[in-house]
């Protein structure tokens, strides 16, 4: 089913980074920014969803209390790294059902420093045996890809180089610092072959969207961006060996979650990868972005390394990816991550992205992928 009558009328963000501010502060800031961008008041909102993974129960109501009294339904939604996609999708479904017309979707996270608490996703026996390092799972994918296709450490570092360089121009990003290829390749290994400067930074941040119908947006004016597709799936059996997998079939290899979700999103939007002008994708680690190129159809299997090496995914390239700096350089406050991607893309499609603007961007894709193979893909059109 086509989502094309549903639009984003307002987008707001609190920068991603490390802050003393509370989750309430971050979330209220982003929510107010989105409402202001939409030209609407809090009292115009008929329902709200909070995307979060680490925040405690009923955080949505507690954060949005800052905007003033209300009696609308406020629901917390979680689907690992795809939480933002799941929350945005609930808003789309609620509007399409004609239950409500204008919805706030908010993503907020304040993450503990360092590696995530493994008991959130791993079993006790995996933790005892040392199998609770997320980067180990990412790295094993990289090692196999290097073995099968000759992907190089330099190509992987090229992804991190690009994303760190892009974030310099993004006031909402955490690092905003360019690193040389030499610096990246000299940064310490976390899990071979993935290095410190090549993995995503868990941090704090918030992003918010005001979602409504095209009809209402036309009444109100403003600068709406159409949601052409918003798809959420979990990985099929034996389609993915991301954490916390303890094993995988050697006889069945199903389509991976990114390829599957992107395919459904392309079908929904009735377009293909060549129709898309810019992308924000889940660079949990620099290798992962290479694999995603292949799975969303920017190149053939095994061709992701050469694609980035040739500069095709730079801002001036054929397929610009992670103009914001991506998770590697903008950071990954999990609950806010996908919505932050969408805020970046709304800016790109409106031509408001400043020094990181992709010329003539009309169509854009946001992609997230995480624990349990939770994957979400949103396609926007302007």
């Amino acid at each position: 089913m086509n989502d094309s009558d549903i639009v984003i009328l307002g987008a707001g963000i609190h920068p991603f980074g490390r802050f003393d501010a509370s989750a309430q502060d971050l979330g209220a800031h982003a929510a107010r920014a989105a409402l202001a961008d939409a030209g609407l008041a809090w009292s115009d909102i008929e329902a709200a969803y909070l995307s979060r993974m680490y925040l405690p129960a009923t955080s949505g109501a507690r954060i949005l209390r800052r905007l003033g009294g209300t009696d609308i339904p406020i629901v917390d939604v979680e689907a690992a790294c795809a939480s933002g996609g799941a929350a945005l999708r609930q808003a789309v479904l609620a509007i399409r059902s004609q239950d409500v017309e204008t919805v706030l979707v908010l993503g907020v996270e304040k993450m503990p420093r360092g590696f995530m608490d493994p008991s959130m996703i791993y079993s006790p026996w995996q933790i005892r045996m040392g199998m609770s390092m997320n980067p180990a799972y990412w790295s094993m994918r990289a090692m196999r890809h290097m073995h099968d296709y000759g992907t190089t450490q330099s190509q992987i570092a090229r992804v991190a180089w690009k994303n760190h360089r892009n974030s310099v121009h993004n006031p909402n990003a955490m690092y905003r610092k360019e690193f040389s290829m030499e610096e990246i390749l000299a940064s310490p290994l976390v899990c071979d072959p993935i290095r410190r400067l090549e993995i995503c930074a868990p941090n704090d941040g918030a992003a918010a969207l005001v979602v409504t119908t095209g009809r209402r947006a036309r009444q109100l004016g403003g600068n709406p961006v159409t949601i052409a597709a918003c798809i959420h799936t979990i990985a099929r059996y034996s389609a993915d060996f991301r954490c916390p997998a303890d094993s995988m079939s050697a006889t069945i290899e199903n389509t991976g979650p990114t390829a599957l979700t992107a395919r459904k999103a392309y079908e929904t939007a009735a377009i293909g990868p060549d129709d898309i002008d810019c992308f924000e994708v889940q660079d949990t680690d620099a290798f992962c972005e290479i694999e995603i190129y292949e799975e969303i159809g920017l190149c053939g299997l095994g061709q992701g390394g050469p694609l980035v090496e040739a500069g095709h995914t730079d801002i001036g390239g054929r397929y610009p990816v992670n103009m914001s700096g991506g998770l590697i350089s903008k950071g990954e406050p999990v609950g806010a991550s996908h919505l932050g991607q969408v805020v970046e893309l709304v800016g790109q499609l409106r031509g408001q992205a400043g020094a990181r603007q992709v010329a003539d961007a009309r169509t854009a894709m946001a992609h997230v992928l995480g624990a349990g193979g939770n994957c979400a893909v949103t396609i926007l059109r302007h």
Partner: protein
Amino acid sequence: MQAESTAASAVAPINDGMVRSLDPAHGQIELLGSRCATCGEVSLGTNAVCLNCGGDNIESIALGSEGTLWTFTVVRHRPPGNYLGPDPFEPFGVGLVELPSGLRVMTPLDGDISTFRIGDKVRLAPWLLREGEDRRWLAFRFTAAGGSAA
């Protein structure tokens, strides 16, 4: 649960229905798995249902102890939480080992971290873990068997 119910000197399997000792000294172990009679898929541990088709006509099998390294990495930092490996921390290998029974298993790798190669032949080995004063766990890892299937 199993640790609670054993004497202080006893060794409990790291996870119920996943690993079994084949001799009193725990010098040889077996990895346990399940095969679905409906779709034929094999899974790690004793599962009541098939993760592929949801069927519940399941037979218990031993997964075999010789395999090949399908991929691997080296963990360079102490894993978060209650990791029971060497203290102080030493970098160690983690791999996905393909067993002839049709399953690839995530596992720690014993041995020199500079020597692992995809395609290596590896063999199941017991790994005894101590937790505090009283708990001892029978875990598993794989170790180089010599030779390469690649």
